[in-house]
C-alpha cells in the first residue's frame, strides 16, 4: 500500500539529514493538521529556523541547561551492573539527574525560549505520566507564563503526585474525558485548545511527534543528550561506543541520544518499545513492533490501530510509554534498517527495575527500566572490551507506588 522510499538519503549519504523541507522523513512525518493551525505552524517553523541560526538563542539555552537543569548530566560507568551481567562495559547517560527528574525538561526549556521569542503569552501542553506536564509547568513558573496542561482522566488518577506537582508550580490541569481519557485524547484536546487560541498560545509538544517542525525541533533540543555522550565517552574511553540503547514511547529521549551517532555505521542502535502484557495479547504500546503506518496528531508514522483505521489505546505499566504512536523519524529509521526496534514486557521491565536498584543504588523510572531489560537480554552478545551506553532518561520516584502495587506490596 505504501511505497517504501525510505532509504538513506542518496544525495547526502546521511541518516542525519532529515526531515526534508516539507517535514518528511521518507514517507513519514509531514503536516497533517486542520487549516486553522497551518498559518501558526508555519510561523513556528519560521521562528524556529531564525532561533536556530541565532547564537544568542543557543547561549540562552546553554545558560539555563547548565545552571537550571544541571547539565551536562554525567556519563556513569555502571560497574557493578556490568560485572553482574558479564557482558559489555555499561554506561548510563544520567538524564534522571536533571532538574525535575527526567530528560523532558531539555525540550520544554528549548520550546519556552522559542515561545518567548514569538511573544506568545500562554502555554499549553499534553501529558500522560505527568513528566512532560511537570517539565512544562516548571519552565512556565520560571518564565512567568500561564500554563494549561491537558491530562486524561484515567492518567490523573494513576499519577496523582505529578498532578499535585503541576498545581504547586502554578499550572492549571484540565482533565480530559473525551475519547478514552488517555494521552492521545489529551493531545487531541490540546490541539482543540490551540485551534481556538492561535494568536496567544504556544503548544509545547512533549515528544518527537506532531506536525513538522515539532519532530525535528524536539529532536534537536534533546540531542544535547547524544552530543554530551559523544564528548564524555571520548574523554573516558577515547573511542565511540559499540551499542546505544534507549526506551521509546514517543521516542524523544531515544532520538536525542541516537541522532548524533546515526552516521557511525559500526554503532549498533536499539530502541526499546513497551510490550505491556505481551504483543500477542494486544495490550501493549509497541507501535513499530505491533502497529501499522497511519496518520494521527499531525504526522504519518506507525500507529496502533484497527483495520478500519481507528486508533487503539496503548497499554504499558509505564505511563510514559503509553502512547499509540511513535515519532516519525523512528518509523523511518526502522524502515531504513539503521535502528533496530525491539520490545520488552511489563514483567521484564519490573525485573530490570529491581536489579538496577540493587546493583547500582539507582531507582530508575519504569521507562528506562525497559531499556535496561533489553540490555540484560543482549549482554551475553558482548564482551567486556565493548562499550554500551543506555539512556537513564528518568528517575523512579514517581513510579514507586505502581511498582509496589505490581509487586504486591501494600504501602
Amino acid at each position, binding site marked *: 500500500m505504501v511505497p517504501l522510499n525510505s532509504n538513506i538519503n542518496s544525495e547526502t549519504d546521511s541518516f542525519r539529514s532529515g526531515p526534508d523541507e516539507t517535514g518528511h522523513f521518507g514517507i513519514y512525518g509531514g503536516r497533517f493538521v*486542520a*487549516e*486553522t493551525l497551518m*498559518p501558526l505552524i508555519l510561523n513556528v517553523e519560521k521562528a524556529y529556523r531564525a532561533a536556530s541560526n541565532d547564537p544568542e538563542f543557543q547561549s540562552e539555552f546553554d545558560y539555563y541547561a547548565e545552571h537550571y537543569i544541571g547539565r551536562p548530566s554525567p556519563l556513569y560507568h555502571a560497574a557493578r551492573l556490568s560485572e553482574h551481567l558479564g557482558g559489555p562495559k555499561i554506561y548510563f547517560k544520567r538524564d534522571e539527574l536533571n532538574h525535575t527528574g527526567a530528560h523532558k525538561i531539555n525540550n520544554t526549556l528549548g520550546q519556552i525560549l522559542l515561545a518567548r521569542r514569538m511573544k506568545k503569552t500562554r502555554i499549553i501542553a499534553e501529558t500522560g505520566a505527568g513528566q512532560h506536564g511537570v517539565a512544562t509547568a516548571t519552565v512556565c513558573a520560571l518564565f512567568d507564563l500561564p500554563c494549561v496542561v491537558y491530562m486524561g482522566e484515567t492518567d490523573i488518577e494513576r499519577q496523582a503526585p505529578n498532578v499535585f506537582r503541576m498545581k504547586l508550580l502554578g499550572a492549571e490541569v484540565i482533565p480530559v474525558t473525551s*475519547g478514552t481519557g488517555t494521552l492521545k485524547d489529551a493531545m*487531541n484536546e490540546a490541539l482543540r485548545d490551540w*485551534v481556538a487560541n492561535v494568536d496567544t498560545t504556544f503548544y509545547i509538544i512533549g515528544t518527537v511527534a506532531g506536525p513538522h517542525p515539532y519532530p525535528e525541533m524536539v529532536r534537536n533540543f534533546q540531542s544535547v543528550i547524544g552530543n554530551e555522550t559523544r564528548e564524555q565517552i571520548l574523554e573516558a574511553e577515547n573511542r565511540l561506543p559499540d551499542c546505544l540503547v534507549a526506551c521509546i514511547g514517543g521516542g524523544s529521549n531515544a532520538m536525542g541520544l541516537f541522532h548524533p551517532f546515526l552516521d557511525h555505521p559500526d554503532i549498533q542502535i536499539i530502541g526499546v518499545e513497551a510490550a505491556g502484557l505481551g504483543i500477542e495479547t494486544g495490550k501493549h504500546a509497541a507501535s513499530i513492533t505491533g502497529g501499522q503506518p497511519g496518520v494521527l496528531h499531525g504526522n504519518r508514522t506507525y500507529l496502533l490501530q484497527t483495520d*478500519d483505521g481507528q*486508533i487503539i489505546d496503548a497499554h504499558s505499566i509505564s505511563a510514559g510509554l503509553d502512547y499509540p504512536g511513535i515519532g516519525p523519524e523512528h518509523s523511518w529509521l526502522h524502515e531504513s534498517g539503521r535502528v533496530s526496534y525491539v520490545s520488552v514486557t511489563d514483567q521484564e521491565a519490573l525485573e530490570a527495575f529491581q536489579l538496577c536498584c540493587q546493583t547500582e543504588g539507582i531507582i530508575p523510572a519504569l521507562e528506562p527500566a525497559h531499556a535496561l531489560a533489553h540490555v540484560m537480554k543482549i549482554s551475553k552478545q558482548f564482551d567486556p572490551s565493548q562499550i554500551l551506553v543506555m539512556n537513564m532518561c528518568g528517575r523512579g520516584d514517581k513510579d514507586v507506588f505502581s511498582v509496589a502495587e505490581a509487586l504486591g506490596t501494600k504501602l
Partner: protein
Amino acid sequence: MNDSNLSDTRITRCFANLAKQNRKAFVAFLTGGDPDYQTSKQLVSGLPAAGVDLIEIGMPFSDPMADGPSIQVSSQRALRNGMTLVKTLDLVREFRKTDDATPIVLMGYYNPIYRYGAHHFVQECAEIGVDGLIIVDLPPEEDKELCEPALTAGLHWVRLVTPSTDDDRIDAVLHNVSGFVYYISVLGVTGTRRAMADHIEVAVSRLRKYTSLPIAVGFGIKTPEHAKAVAEHADGIVVGSAIVDMVKANLDESGKPNAELVDRVHDFVRDIAKGVENA
C-alpha cells in the same frame, strides 16, 4: 490532471439552480452510522424532503481533533455500534438508489482512508455517487495524498477557509478547490462558538475577491434565526453539531433511539431550512 469533468456535477448544478431562484444552500451534516446504521440511513434519506440542498456525511474517527464535543460523541456512538468506513460507503450506495440528484460530500479525517487505500477509496466514491470530499487534516501541503487522486477520479475537493487564513496563504488554500468553499466562521472546533453576522459579511466579501466559487459558512449555527442571518451574507450555510445534538436528545439512557428520533431530527432540519429560505 483531468478535472474538466468537474464543471457539471450534482454540486455545480445544485448551486446553479439555487442561484437562479435567488435562494441560499442549506448544507446539513450528520455523522454516518449515528446512532446506528439503520437509523442513520433513515435520517439521511429524509434530509432532501426536509429542505436540505446538500448532504455532508461525517466518516467517524476515533480521534476527531477538529471537532467539538457534539460531533466527538456522535462519532463514538457510531463507532461503538460498529460503524466503519466501508459502511459509510454503503450508506451512500443505499441513498443513491432513490436519490440521484442531491449532492453528497463526505467529511472526515485521513487515517481511515489511508488504511483503506487512498486510490481505492476515491475510485469507489466516484462510482457510488459521492460528489466531494472534505478531509480536515489534509492541508494543501499534503495535496498529493488524496486531493490530486480525488480530482482525477472526478470528485470535488472542498477545503475549509478559516479566519486565520491570511492573504499570504489564501491562494494556496483555494488551489485545487472546486464545488464550493467552506468558510469556518470562528476559530476553534465545530459547534462551540457562535459566529457574528458582521464578521461573516466582511470575511465573505474578502473571500469573494479570491474566488468565484459559491461560499458556504458554517461552525456554530444552531437556530433558524441564526441560519437566516448568516445565509444573508453567503451562498449557503452548514449546520452540523445542532443536528447531531438533536440525535443525542432522542436517545434513551442505554443509547437506543426513541420512536420519535427520526421525525424530530427532520422537524428540526425543516425549521432551519425555513430560516435559510427567508434569507
